[in-house]
């Protein structure tokens, strides 16, 4: 039997790697993928909690998280496309017209 802690630590590690990507990557699409990574980390912990608590709520929540992630990706990528049309880049550095 694999202890729950292993899963939780794995989840935390993936979450933090995702966060690291979000903090450091300069390409919007990769930043987006980093967020997806964080969501996947949450899903891992939810599914493992569900398994160990013998409960279905975690699975239900994961189902919704994936749905929302899909919706978020659709909108996010649509925004990136319209951004790309105005300014031929997906680079965050170019996106500081507003600051201060």
């Amino acid at each position, binding site marked *: 039997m694999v202890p729950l802690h292993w899963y939780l630590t794995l989840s935390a590690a993936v979450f933090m790697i995702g*966060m690291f990507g979000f*903090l450091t*990557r300069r390409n919007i699409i990769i*930043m987006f993928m980093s967020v997806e990574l964080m969501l996947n980390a949450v899903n891992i912990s939810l599914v493992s909690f569900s398994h160990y608590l013998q409960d279905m709520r975690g699975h239900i929540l994961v189902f919704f998280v994936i749905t929302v992630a899909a919706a978020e990706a659709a909108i996010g990528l649509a925004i990136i496309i319209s951004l790309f049309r105005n300014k031929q880049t997906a680079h*965050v550095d170019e*996106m500081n017209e507003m*600051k*201060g």
Partner: protein
Amino acid sequence: MNSYALIPFLPLAAFVINILFGRKYLKENAHWVSILAVAGSWVLAVMALVDVLGGNTINFDLYTWMLSGGFKVSVGFLIDQLTVVMLIVVTTCSTLIHIYSVGYMHGDSGYYRFFAYLSLFTFSMLMLVMANNFLQLYFGWEGVGLCSYFLIGYYFNKKSASDAGKKAFIVNRFGDFGFGLGIFVVFLTFGTVYYEPVFSQAGGLAEATFNFLGYDVHLMTLIALLLFCGSVGKSAQIPLHVWLPDAMEGPTPVSALIHAATMVTAGVFLVARCSPIFSLSETALMVVALTGAITSLFAATIGLVQNDLKRIIAYSTVSQLGYMFLACGVGAYTAGIFHLYTHAFFKALLFLCAGSVMHAMGGELDIQKMGNLKKYMPVTYMTMLIASFSISGIPGLAGFFSKDEILWMAYAGESPVGKFVWAIGTLVAFLTAFYSFRLIFLTFHGKFRGTHDQEHHLHESPKSMTIPLMLLCVGAVAAGWVGIPALIGEKIGVHNYIAEFMKPVLGHPEGHGTHAEEMVVMLISIAVGLAGIGLAYFMYILRPELPARLAQQLSAVYRVLFNKYYVDELYSFIIVRPAIWIAKNVLIGITDARIIEAVVNGVPSAIAAFSSGLRKIQTGLMQHYATIMATGILIIVAIMLLR
């Protein structure tokens, strides 16, 4: 909701309507809205009077503005005997003066604005007298002050008018500071600002003291004196009297309504309203009595030699207000309020007559340039004459009864300074009669001394002006009949109604004197009144050259009086000029030392510099935003877990 709540709000509605629609739509008809509203308030005030006469006092909260813990601020009305008297005075004078203004302000470019302010003033004054708590009183107090400020400076293109407005505003700040502090101390002491609990608990704290810098301060004396500061400012008592004569720069109806009949009496009203507090402090009462007595003498002597028609009446007002304080100070609050009530009629009448004269003379105010006006303006003459008889205390007229009541209560009351202030009061009665008739004789009798043009132009004022004069004249004659002293009343079968009426709120101390003494006091007051009139007749009708000679012989005294004891100059010397000097030299000196700059400009600019620096954190880059969020999370997690 109680319909009496409409009393102040009708004028407020008139104000709102006039200010919103006056300029474009109402224009020449602006007065209708205001007059109807004020008349409506008058009707309701009479209904309230009937109600109170029937033995009801009404105390209700209209709505609570805020309530937090023990601190409650609400609009609430207390309608008792004192309030009702004030209501009648305010609404009656206000209505008549509104009507008078129709004629007086006719053709003025800011017609609607004038009526709007007048209505706003009426609203504030009614809020002031109807309040059932100190905060609302303060609201009304500042409200009337603000309206007064607007209306004094009504002819804002005229420098003297806007200066006078500013002066009134600044001088009143001194008084209101004390007043505000007083309300604060009331709140600290009683935990509430409502009259009812404050006054009922005041008795229990009669001996309370608190230690301030090593001195034991008597709490009630402190509160009373702080509140009295407000009175001194608003009612133009020494040393804050300087603004009232200057306030005459405003339109005459304003002088009549605000600076004679109503607003300036708010100070007296305040003392009467807080009589449960004042009565607990002998010191405070003595201060009130002496301030009143000295002011009345001081102002009356100045009035003797002034030549400006409205200023004479203004000094007369200051003097009469002093009388009222004198009454309150000897514990005769009823007499003070009674005098307030009769004074409102004859003084408003005097001002309106003055306005009528100005109207005829084309704005001329110097009585040395008038004369023989009785021929041209009989109504004005007759009414002003009656008003002057009334203020001089001629038996049977309103002023006689109230003045006599005050003098008798001063003489026979328990106040340690009673006899002294009685003597001053009697002297002032003589002076009052003298300068009042000096005014009448110089204005209406003798030969006309103005220009030919003016003489040609002389005419009686229109009906809308003379009718209020006549109505007020009725008041100046008959208003006193509700307070006929027992001495006379017993013989003709009437009571001193007003004293009985007011007894539940103000009490009615009995004089400690015999009937004979009372008779003597009364006769003396009649005698000095007649003497004053006689002297004026002698000096200005029989021997018109005498005043100039006297002025020459007593030139030192004359100059002091003519220059109003140099108080304005004194203030200019000890307050205004040093203030300007300090502003000019010291402040600039410190600015050079960059202290003020550091404090005044430095703090905002330091914050601004800090702000500009801080702005750099907001780089516009998402990773930085996320990094700061993550740092925030880390710090919070670390704090919470390592705690």
